[in-house]
């Protein structure tokens, strides 16, 4: 299976070629080369996925196989969830490239080259079985992402976003570095299977717990969990739209993928006796993130920033799902991540259409102007419904699995958190649909309702046009269709459940990676969706619609509520929003507090 390294190698070579011929290559040639490479990587990842579904396998670079369970070389350890994430990333890069054919007028080869490098880094990150190798891909992904964020370097927003993004994520990466060094000091190993094997059988001591906290806080910085999430909204709001697709659709989720991967390959054996306490820590973090992101999402008028905060809210939900530490919870997350990735990518593309056509992404500036492009409005509304996990779509199946996993883990309040997140994020997008595409609601936010900031920044496109290239609508339409039907394909959801159970088999992972034995797994159970799940999810969607309607049509009612009643919550909300100050110093102070809290809680609870 020598094609294993190709998802990393092919885009890197492609990027090098694009940079090399940049001086004279016409735009079309850049598009064709980048598109061909992206489609090739999609095919390669799909082949790996198809093979790993039945037999996860390790590939050792240069033939440096492990001897007596001691890994000297670097492995790509491929199982179905890892290959699935790589495939999702590749598909989103391919669609983002297709979308950018029409979106950018002046993109030169550098943009395409950076996108391909981004693709290589994400694929390597998902496939590798070596902890240090994972960090290198993490840093590569980061460096490329900083450059892509600052692609419009002449503007203030992208500069600020890229600087905050780069400094926050670099600090996270250095925490990971120290964590790796501590684990290496303890075990003498860098291969995840071997580290896990070496830690097994002994209770975790403070060194292991500190290493775990450093690794988790580092990867959670990329995932943007509260309170290390601040950079995300700044960066996602200003990056070019094709880049936002990747940031929100898959890059943030990769941070969570790393947390899950590390826990089950490395720490599951040593921390097994304390699983309940770790569960409490992760679920608490996830809950705060889900609610925080949801509230911030609903209060935004800058559409890209709104979508960025909705990503943070979903990251919180996913973190809860992983934190349940059960196969069903992880399966729910994996299913929802696939649905969410397509859905969020499509929504960013549609916002890109608004930006391309009207030169603004401010909800109030756009009031009613979307009426001339109804198709886009319909798609946008569908995207909002999908965000609220409307029954029958992929995200619904993921949410149902999460709900039943939460009940199984005796956290009966957790489904309420999930539904609040769905209502706030879905409701926000539906509200925008009503205001922009139907002209409902207030055209101008009233003076006293006006919350601070939300400066009308100049964005990547400032000129308005009177046409929209059909391709820019077709690509998100296809993605939305994918987000709807993926979970309906027979066998997909049960397949993901099996994959999640295999992903969590700590002992089997060490065997198939280090000894090369064919993996043997206990048969995994699959779940059944009950009528109750449909009703509960329908309730969430109705809630989202109701919230949007209340905001659009109820603003006159709000005026009648006495100020004494509304004042305090409004002040609190303003203060809460002011925390997102855009100042890197504040963000790093929060980061330090978050790292200390996670480390402290882990040291107290996990011993």
């Amino acid at each position: 299976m020598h094609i294993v390294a190709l998802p990393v190698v092919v885009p890197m070579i492609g990027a090098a070629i694009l940079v090399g011929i940049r001086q004279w290559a016409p735009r079309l040639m850049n598009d064709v080369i980048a598109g061909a490479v992206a489609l090739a990587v999609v095919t390669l990842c799909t082949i790996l996925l198809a093979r790993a579904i039945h037999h996860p396998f390790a590939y050792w670079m240069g033939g440096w196989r492990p001897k007596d369970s001691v890994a000297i070389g670097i492995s790509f350890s491929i199982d179905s969830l890892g290959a699935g994430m790589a495939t999702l990333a590749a598909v989103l890069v391919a669609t983002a490239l297709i979308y950018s054919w029409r979106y950018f007028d002046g993109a030169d080869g550098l943009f395409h080259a950076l996108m391909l490098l981004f693709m290589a880094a994400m694929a390597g990150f998902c496939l590798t079985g070596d902890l240090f190798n994972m960090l290198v891909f993490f840093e590569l992904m980061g460096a490329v992402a900083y450059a892509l964020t600052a692609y419009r370097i002449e503007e203030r927003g992208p500069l600020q976003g890229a600087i905050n993004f780069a400094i926050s994520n670099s600090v996270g990466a250095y925490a990971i570095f120290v964590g790796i060094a501590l684990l290496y000091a303890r075990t003498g190993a860098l291969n995840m299977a071997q580290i896990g094997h070496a830690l097994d059988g002994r209770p975790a001591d403070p060194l292991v717990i500190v290493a775990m906290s450093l690794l988790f806080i580092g990867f959670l910085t990329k995932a943007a969990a509260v309170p290390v999430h601040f950079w995300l909204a700044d960066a996602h709001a200003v990056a070019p739209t094709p880049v936002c697709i990747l940031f929100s659709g898959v890059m943030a989720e990769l941070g969570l993928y790393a947390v899950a991967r590390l826990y089950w390959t490395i720490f599951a054996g040593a921390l097994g006796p304390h699983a309940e306490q770790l569960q409490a820590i992760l679920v608490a973090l996830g809950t705060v993130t889900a609610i925080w992101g949801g509230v911030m999402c609903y209060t935004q008028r800058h559409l890209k920033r709104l979508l960025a905060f909705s990503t943070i809210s979903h990251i919180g939900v996913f973190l809860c799902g992983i934190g349940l530490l059960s196969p069903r919870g992880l399966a729910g997350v994996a299913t929802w991540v696939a649905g969410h990735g397509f859905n969020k990518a499509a929504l960013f593309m549609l916002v890109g259409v608004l930006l391309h056509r009207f030169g603004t992404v401010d909800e109030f500036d756009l009031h009613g102007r979307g009426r001339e492009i109804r198709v886009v409005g319909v798609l946008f509304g569908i995207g909002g419904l999908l965000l609220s996990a409307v029954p029958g779509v992929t995200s619904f199946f993921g949410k149902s699995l999460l709900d039943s996993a939460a009940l199984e883990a005796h956290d009966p309040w957790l489904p309420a958190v999930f539904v609040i997140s769905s209502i706030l994020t879905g409701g926000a997008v539906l509200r925008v649909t009503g205001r922009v595409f139907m002209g409902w609601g207030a055209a101008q936010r009233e003076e006293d309702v006006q919350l601070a900031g939300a400066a009308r920044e100049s964005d990547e496109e400032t000129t308005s046009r009177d046409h929209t290239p059909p391709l820019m609508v077709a690509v998100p339409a296809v993605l939305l269709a994918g987000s709807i039907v993926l979970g309906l394909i027979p066998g997909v959801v049960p397949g993901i459940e099996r994959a999640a159970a295999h992903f969590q088999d700590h002992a089997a992972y060490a065997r198939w990676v280090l000894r090369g034995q064919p993996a043997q797994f206990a048969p995994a159970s699959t779940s059944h969706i009950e009528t109750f799940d449909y009703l509960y999810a329908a309730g969430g969607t109705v809630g989202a619609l109701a919230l949007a309607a209340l905001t659009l049509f109820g603003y006159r009612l709000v005026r009648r509520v006495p100020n004494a009643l509304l004042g305090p919550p409004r002040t609190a909300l303003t203060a809460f929003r002011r925390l997102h100050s855009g100042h890197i110093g504040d963000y790093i102070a929060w980061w330090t507090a978050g790292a200390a809290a996670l480390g402290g809680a882990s040291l107290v609870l996990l011993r």
Partner: protein
Amino acid sequence: MTFLPYAIAAWLFLVGLYGIVSSRNLIRAILSLTVVQSATYVVLLGVGYSKGAQAPIFADIPQTSKAVDPVVQVLVLTDVVIEATVTAMLLALAVQAYKRFGSLDPQDLRAIQD
């Protein structure tokens, strides 16, 4: 086994973070970031160190002689490459910020905030 390198690393990490938090100048924030990164060098080298050991180059010393761990040194090398990339990128952004907006204070660069 001595705790000194780890204490120094922890100090560097924290003092670097403090530097970023307190910076009113982007260049200072970026240099503080490299101080944070220096902590990782110290940890890695501390992990690989053993008393009385030589550099792990076996061309001119006997194969049996005690040597420090070469793996962590390779990791440090990778770390340096990463630092060079990220620092260069950040400094380029800072230069751009100064050219366009005439300020290096993160406070003045805020385009978006809530």
